[in-house]
């Protein structure tokens, strides 16, 4: 059974193997840090994020946007869904992100016969100690890469649900805390749909963002052929930040200030998707929360301690598009979820009070 769980160790250079102690959180609720990690200072945050992005960009050419969004999701404590045709570097992006951080990584290759216990872990009777012993599943890692997630059965997929939402695993009535940071990076292939179990809405809603990699442009592709033909690019990647640093980066993101008008803007975006005539299902309140979190991470990555409307706009498409369901009429009219989100963004006033500001300041205007 263990063959589903492919350790990254074989690809790693010496001395950078998976650290068992941190990967297997082992016995529950004991190894968690006593107090939350402290926030970082701006300079440290900037240098850390720059190091991560530079490392990713050396491996994946011409995909800076996707890399930044992946980091954003990580810092916003969300999960990432990479959806694209095979061979554009989905798994590579996930692996690289994982590799740049000095933390535990596990990878699950989803297949139809994968069982939920393979994901979560299983209690095995230990003959020696004559007791049941919990053997943690693949999900016990800081970064979990779920490859081709739509190939697993619905049962296995939903086993991920609890882990993703609650950052804990419950086996045989015992809950086991997952380590922080915890992030699931799932990939799926939208082309070969035969024999797959498309993710249900509820599960899609648990992913903070969905990214399409897209094909690289000509220069990037040439560059890739040039540099990566002999060696695996992953071989060069070394961890540039520690898990602790990432945790304090996350703490920093949490403190980013969100003003009232941003909240209003976010809410009005969500309401607009629900009231849009082109959608069968609008964005959920949870997605609003995740949108705001992603915006906070974006703001922090941009070197700010407050959120701008631009941050919301920049992540809105990735955060909202996979959660909404198009009306049949709109779908046949050639609309896509992305285009609907863009239309909503183009319609909603950024801050309603801004338009009123000059008039309010000048009550006696002619």
């Amino acid at each position, binding site marked *: 059974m263990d063959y589903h769980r492919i350790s990254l160790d074989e690809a790693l250079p010496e001395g950078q193997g998976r650290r068992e102690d941190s990967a297997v959180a082992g016995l529950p609720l004991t190894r968690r840090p006593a107090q939350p990690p402290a926030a970082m200072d*701006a300079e440290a945050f900037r240098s850390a994020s720059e190091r991560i992005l530079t490392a990713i960009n050396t491996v994946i050419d011409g995909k800076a946007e996707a890399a930044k969004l992946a980091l954003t999701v990580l810092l916003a404590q969300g999960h990432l869904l990479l959806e694209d045709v095979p061979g554009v570097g989905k798994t590579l992006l996930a692996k690289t992100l994982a590799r740049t951080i000095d933390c535990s990584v596990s990878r699950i290759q989803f297949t139809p016969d994968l069982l939920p216990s393979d994901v979560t872990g299983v209690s095995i009777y230990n003959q020696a100690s004559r007791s049941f012993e919990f053997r943690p599943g693949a999900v016990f890692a800081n970064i979990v890469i779920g490859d081709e997630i739509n190939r697993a059965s619905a049962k296995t997929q939903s086993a991920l649900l609890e882990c993703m939402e609650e950052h804990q695993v419950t086996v045989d009535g015992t809950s086991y805390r997952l380590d922080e940071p915890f992030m699931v990076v799932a990939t799926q292939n939208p082309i070969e749909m035969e024999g797959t179990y498309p993710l249900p809405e509820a599960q899609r809603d648990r992913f903070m963002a969905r990214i399409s990699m897209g094909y690289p442009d000509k220069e990037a592709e040439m560059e890739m052929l040039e540099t990566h033909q002999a060696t695996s690019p992953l071989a060069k990647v070394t961890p540039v930040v520690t898990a602790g640093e990432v945790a304090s980066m996350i703490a920093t993101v949490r*403190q980013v200030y969100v003003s009232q008008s941003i909240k209003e803007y976010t809410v009005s975006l969500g309401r607009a998707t629900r009231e849009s005539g082109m959608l069968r299902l609008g964005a959920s309140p949870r997605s609003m929360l995740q949108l705001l979190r992603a915006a906070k991470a974006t703001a*922090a990555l941009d070197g700010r301690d407050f959120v701008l409307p631009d941050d919301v706009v920049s992540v809105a498409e990735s955060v909202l598009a996979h959660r909404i369901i198009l009306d049949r009429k709109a779908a046949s009219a050639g609309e896509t979820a992305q285009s609907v989100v863009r239309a909503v963004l183009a319609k909603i006033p950024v801050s309603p009070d*801004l338009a009123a500001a000059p008039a309010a*300041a*000048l009550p006696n205007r002619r």
Partner: protein
Amino acid sequence: MTLAPQRSAGTHAGRSGAAGDSGPGPRGPESPGTPKARTKTGAQPWLMALAVAVAVAGAALSLNGVLRGWAWYSPVLSTVLTVAFTMAGLRALRWHSIFVTAGALAALALILTFTFFRPNSILGFIPSGATMTQLGRYLRRASETVLAESAPVAPNAGIVLLVCAALGLMVILVDALAYPLALPATSGLGILAILIVPAMIKPQSVGVLGFAAATAGYLLILGCSHWFAPDPRTGADTARNPGQFRRGALTGAVALTVTLLLQLVVPGFEQGTFPQGSRLNPFGPASGLNPMISLGNSLRSPTGDGRITFATNAASTPYLRSVTVDSFNGDNWAPDDRDSTRRLGTGRMDSGFESAATEVRVVTAINTGQFTSPYLPAPYAPEAVNGLTGRWSWDPATLSIKGVDANSRNQQYVVLSAAPQLTPDLLAQATGPVQDVPDQFIRTPDNVPEIVRSTAQTVTEGSTTPYARAMAIQAYLRSVDFTYSLQSPVQGGYDGNGLSVLADFLNQKSGYCIHFASAMAVMARLEGIPSRIAVGYAPGRATGATVSIGGQGALPEFEVDARDAHAWPELYFQGLGWVPFEPTPSRGVVPSYATEGQAPSGASTNENNDGLIPSNAAVPTPTPTVAPLPLPGAAAEPAGASVLRPVLYGAGAVLILGLLLASPHLARGALRRRRLSGSGAGSAAAPQAWAELRDLATDYGVAPRTSETPRHFSERLRQAGALGEPQGLDADGHRAVRSLTADFERRQYGRPPSVPGVDGVPSGARPGSGTSAGSAGSAAGAGSSEASAGPLIAAVRSSLRAHAGPLVRFRAEWLPPSILAVWRRAAAVPFRAARRTAQRTRRGLAGARSEVRGALRRVRRARRLRRS
């Protein structure tokens, strides 16, 4: 697929069969073409022809007054209609537009031949050789008329032929512009060309009727062309859209209001004829209540309106007097209407003065015709007037007769008047002190210009008796120094009445009867002789006809019209009463008692008013700079004030107009100042500066969108090229925009300064507190950069100006779109409210109706149940 052509062929056959009976004309719509195109061309040529015909025929209405009477209008109308509908017919037959024009020309030739050369042509409408000779004759006659006669000319065949031909060509031109060339708006040029003729020639300009008809036709043309061929630029927003109509109506209303108001504000243009005056008067012509004002216009009128005929048994043709002016104070002299002392009834009138001279009773029968005035023209001094309709009253002091509830239009009456037989001897003896004359005739005006006073003194030097003094004044005014001119007062700016005008007149020594009469009247008062100005008519011309009046036999008939309008002074001599004088050279008849040996023009009459019509006479134009009498210092002031007043009014009007035009600019400036300085409170400064930046960008054509984030907008503004290159000389503007954006973002979205760091995290630990300040280029943070919003805005503004074209710069300065948009929104508020109210009312009514219907149904059902 197969059904459609069959059906269409069927209707086609049926219709053409039906049309075959009625002739070739209506076959047009059935001509080949797709069914869609057929419906489109159906009514358009006909409606368009109607519109063109209305426009041209309507504009032709204004030619009345250029041509006398209306007899010429029916050939004009037939020509216009024939040409217009020939074109429509040809077009409905789908002829090529060149052939349509050619056909219209042929139709024009045929209808002109039919109208004017019927006997000299083949079959009455085909031109022949005889037609050509006749045409030459007509053209010669027309050219003679044009050269010899002044408007209104008699509508002889030559002139009418010319007019018809010109209007027919105009129809073709207008139609060509509106239809095949698809330039409907420029078709107004053709209509304007027609309107210019009366505007140049007629004193009352185009006239309301012609103007309104031409405008209606023009609007019809525009409407038709927009209806049938919507402008592709407006897209779906065609004339069929009701919103378009409302917009059009609003635009038209605003344009009309502005036209009517603006021309009232523009100074000058109060009197005189075309080049100098005569504005479009929406309130109708002057009522004649102040004859002093209308006199100049009447004199200049070439039409000779208001013809009065009269027959008299007097030895010499009398002056017809209608009103007197006796109060010479103020700026504007008008008849003093002492309504309280007026007496009703004209059967017996008496001035109350005893005259030492023998009086001769004169009977005069007067027919006023179209002359309309509240005052009745009558020879002086009337004793009884018979035959009037309506109620009339008379003033014992002046013997002017005024209608109580009637006017002088279409009155025929007989006046019995007493003409004292005055002689110079009698007058010379009248030296006694003036008694029993109301003070109003004696009072010297308070503000007599010094030049009048000094002139009076100089002129009457050495004269002892009142008569001698009066004769001296009259002789002075009739001397060769003075010229009679209707135009020079207009050009010199003293066309009117009043004391200030008088000073100008005495300086320029050129004017018309008003000036001469008032000069003499005022100077007489200065010399102690009571005086007043009589307004009426100089003796006219004999018509050659005779009128028989009961008891008098056949009397010669005379006529006067507006061109004979006149004013003359009347002086009071003790024991003799009011004695008229004639100081105006070349006008009227100098009374025998007032003639002296030296008066060369004593016999001059205005038998033919040749000298009056400026175009016919070489009136020596006085050089306005010549001032033969030295101006005493005191004289400058009232004269200066009078000159200043129109200047002041004009300046005021120009100021108001300027303010109106500059109001967007001023409002924009005030808004900017208030934003940059007024809100000193730090919390509001950044949003205010940001609002100013948005408006600035709007003014220079980079308008922010509501769904745009501040940063995106600022990027777009900088990328748009409105600020120039981000490096080098233009770096200031870019830096300012970036700084303003950063300030605003921090203020709008950043952590409020009063709130301490969440969870006690020191502010230094927050990301961005250092970096963002660094990017804004001000290390001190929010406070200092906000204080400098003014210079930043100024930098942005100068950068925007430097990179904008002259037109954009002008618009941003004087018609800033940001302000205009706000005003437009404000202007639209009433419309929106009205629309909403209408909607609500409609909905409410519909609701009430359905409720009532439901209630009725319930009642009916209940009744049915009860019955069953």
